[in-house]
């Protein structure tokens, strides 16, 4: 599902993709997917919502991979997206920071409101948007030719931002991801000299050095061993206080461990969205039940 790129795509400046901005303001003729989200009606007050997704549809050419997703994402919480391969979960988070449109032949309809601001509006610069909505990918992808220090600063530099106190920023970001103690004596070593788990934490440090408000994580642990996974999950718990995190995962136990809320996607539809405790003990939808208990397909 995940497209791997040599350069961290959250740093690529792409704008003016045809189709998306115009389509965003058109009301959809199709009804929104019916979603049972009783827990949310009771526990998610309007002012706690960081990202409001409304009737989101995404296409690869003529193929509609997201079929009208309406989903409120609460701020400073962890929201997990689960579902089988091809359900649209990676596409979904790539729509949140306008990464989907980077792929040629793609198109987006519907609304993504970040603090009420429609990110698909004509005058929104996707590059600036991605500074607010950062992304971490499946495979750790530090820049191979850069040192650890340069990697942390890469986001700022590639965005042409002045860093007034780089040493402090590097230390702060690396401390935030609990990597500082492990690398402080070798900041000029290559980023790729680190272990897989360390590389992934370095990529998270690079993302948070930009001081984003939202952190999107696309299968961030799928290439990591259980101990490295546990460290990233511990980090997610830490980061939750400061960031809104949306994580896509194939690993349901991981959703159970890290997420406050879990959304189950199937074939481009949102089937169920509720508190993680509810999803894993008494889901309301049969399709959710079948998927998480391993009765699918």
């Amino acid at each position: 599902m995940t497209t791997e790129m040599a350069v961290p795509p959250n740093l690529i400046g792409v704008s003016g993709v045809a189709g998306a901005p115009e389509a965003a303001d058109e009301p959809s003729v199709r009804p929104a997917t019916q979603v049972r989200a009783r827990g949310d009606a009771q526990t998610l007050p309007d002012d706690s919502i960081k990202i409001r997704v409304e009737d989101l549809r995404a296409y690869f050419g003529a193929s509609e991979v997201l079929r009208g997703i309406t989903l409120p994402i609460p701020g400073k919480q962890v929201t997990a997206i689960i579902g089988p391969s091809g359900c649209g979960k990676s596409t979904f988070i790539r729509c949140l920071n306008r990464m989907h449109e980077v792929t040629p032949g793609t198109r987006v309809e519907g609304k993504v409101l970040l603090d009420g601001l429609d990110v698909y509006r004509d005058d929104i610069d996707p590059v600036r948007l991605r500074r607010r909505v950062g992304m971490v990918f499946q495979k750790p992808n530090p820049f191979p030719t850069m040192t650890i220090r340069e990697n942390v600063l890469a986001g700022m530099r590639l965005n042409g931002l002045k860093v007034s106190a780089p040493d402090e920023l590097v230390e702060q970001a690396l401390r935030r991801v609990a990597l500082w103690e492990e690398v402080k004596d070798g900041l000029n070593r290559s980023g790729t000299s680190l272990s897989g788990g360390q590389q992934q934490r370095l990529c998270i440090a690079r993302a948070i050095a930009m001081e984003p408000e939202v952190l999107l994580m696309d299968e961030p642990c799928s290439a990591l061993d259980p101990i490295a996974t546990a460290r990233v999950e511990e980090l997610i718990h830490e980061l939750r206080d400061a960031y809104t995190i949306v994580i896509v995962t194939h690993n349901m136990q991981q959703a159970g461990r890290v997420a406050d809320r879990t959304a189950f996607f199937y074939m481009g539809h949102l089937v169920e969205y509720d508190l993680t405790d509810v999803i894993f003990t008494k889901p309301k939808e049969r399709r959710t039940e079948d998927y998480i208990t391993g009765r699918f397909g």
Partner: protein
Amino acid sequence: MARHTDREYEQELEQLRNTVLLMGARVEQMTKSALDAFARHDVELARETIALDSEIDRLELDIDERCVKVLARRQPVASDLRFITTTLKIVTDLERMGDLAGNVSERVVELDSTSLLPVRASLVQMGHVVSDMLHEALDAFIDGDAARAERVIQRDSVVDATYAKIFPELLGHMMEDPKSVATAQKLQSIAKYLERVADHATNLGEMVVYMVRGEDKRHSGKIGRGAAG
């Protein structure tokens, strides 16, 4: 419900379910047998009934072990998780019911055959209700029938009411005729055992409702939730 993609897992759950059913059937058999022995004053049957308890104890250990293995290796969720947690709890109730049926049988062995017949008739009547509650609770478990389980829960008050009447009746007999004290005490114990079996059947019913619907019926609204959790 659809089957699990992993057939070995499906089989593990199926075997676990069958073992619970076997244990339930044994407990039901033991309860009925203890009541028959009491009703007919059949000391021989009472002795045989006591001997049934060891198989129930063995099944309890077997089921616990299977549940722990599934938890450790499969990390069950949703209905599977509710099935496993329900099973872990109801085996304890079933095992206690077996013990109580054994206790009834022990008192039958000690009792003489003739005195206080009217109270015995009330106890036999109570025993029928209790035994039926157990039967219904087990059927509700097998069929995943929450409505049936709720009817079991409601019947507990009937048993409690009968039990509440038996004690003053026995007390009256004891005051009237001190020679009846030894027998009356044994009958009082039997009444208590039966009342406890009904409580355990009620627990079964509550757990079945949880297993099926995910609703916790225990301590029906008497305890505030949230603050402690």
